[in-house]
């Protein structure tokens, strides 16, 4: 019962609602269920375009659950259910006609832990654009830019084709964040 209490979340809308602000994503009255267990109660949140919005709360209160609703990652967990509305540019992503793959290309996600694919460093960074069907030249460019942005380029530029897993496990690996960033740079 204690767990239930801690998982129940009410997210209040941001106190200052700038009338001029462009709302990119608008979650309205979201309820979320793991089977019979309700994890989110009437959660609402407006996320502005080109602004960083932070969601803060104690461990296990449902932050990640809430975020995962935004690009329908909860679909992957059997027995889950979300109700309410999550409007992305005015379209409800929770409606059955949403193209989930396209949605996820628009709503990127950065996980708490690094998940290097069993591929080379280059292929790890390039996987997103590769999925989007970018050209080789474009991908080369974005890989270099992303790695430069995260300050890893000089360290890895000579072994882009080597396994990323080994690099990340090696003691010389940069901090977990920078490893993460090496892939986050490509997220839309």
């Amino acid at each position, binding site marked *: 019962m204690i767990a239930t209490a801690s998982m129940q979340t009410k997210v209040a809308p941001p106190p200052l609602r700038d009338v001029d602000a462009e709302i990119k994503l608008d979650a309205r009255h979201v309820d979320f269920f793991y089977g019979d267990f309700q994890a989110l109660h009437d959660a609402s949140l407006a996320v502005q375009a080109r602004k960083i919005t932070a969601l803060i709360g104690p461990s296990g209160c449902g932050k990640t659950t809430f975020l995962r609703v935004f690009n329908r990652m909860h679909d992957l967990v059997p027995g889950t259910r979300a109700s309410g509305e999550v409007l992305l540019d005015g379209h409800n992503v929770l409606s059955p006609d949403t193209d989930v793959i396209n949605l996820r290309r628009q709503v*990127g996600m950065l996980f708490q832990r690094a*998940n290097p694919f069993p591929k080379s460093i280059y292929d790890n960074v390039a996987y997103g654009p590769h999925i989007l069907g970018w050209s080789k030249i474009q991908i080369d460019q974005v890989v270099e830019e992303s790695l430069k942005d995260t300050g890893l380029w000089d360290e890895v530029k000579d072994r882009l084709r080597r396994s990323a897993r080994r690099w990340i496990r090696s003691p010389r690996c940069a901090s977990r964040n920078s490893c993460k960033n090496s892939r986050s740079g490509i997220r839309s």
Partner: protein
Amino acid sequence: MAFHRVGAGGGMSLPLIRTLVDRLVGGLIVLCVSVAAIPVLVLLLFVLINGLPGMLTPGFFTDPPYPQGVPGGGVLNAIIGTLEIVGIGSLLAVPVGALIGIFLSEYGRNQVGNTVRFISDVFTGLPSIAFGIFGYTVVVLTTHHFSALSASIALAVLMLPVILRATETALVLVPNSLREAGLALGAPRWRVTLEIIVPAALGGIVTGALLAMARAAGETAPLLFTAFGNDIVQTNPWQPMGALSLTIFRNALVPYPNLQQQAWAAGLLLVALVAATNILARIYVRRIQR
């Protein structure tokens, strides 16, 4: 450690008993391992001692068997046969088995998957002669010809459950976060499976395939009425073909000492082949995991 000392209220005897129990259990484990390992080692030694002279006979690797009364002869027919029969069998079984394994792991959490799993487990428990009967009934009787291909098909069916279960196990072990990471990028499920999950599990899949091949190479019963055996070097898969296990089976039952020696040598060769396959699998997995 402090926690332990609190428990040791009875003085010094408890750590002593604990040490003794530790030694005793450790000793028991060593004993059990020896009991399991010694017969295997004795068997290997036995095969080595009996098989080596035959293996060192000139022509063992390069000549087909000669009939009684003609000096020399080897098992070239059987070496080629075993490699070809198991090779074709693997070509049939590995892709199908891997695909079924992928299905079970990624899409098989339902009644269909459970049914496939159940059938596969039943197949694993079947005696291998049953696969021989399968090959005989389905291929030999319909083509009216014993053939290496019928043996390959029988072995493929025998290998299938091993491969698909190994593939499924390897894929299930891939952390879910990797799937989510791929899907979160907007990759369709099939691409995530083929481009991320399967490469991540490749070590396990390849190991499973190699182990299945090793098992198939040692089988005799499925070959008796499929490959049939052939003393002539034969590479055409539509024709009857020899195999190392058949050489062992047939030559062990004849009264001629030179042929019996050949059977031992063929046994040693088969053991060596299977061992090499296993070692290869391990090296491959180690390389992939680095």
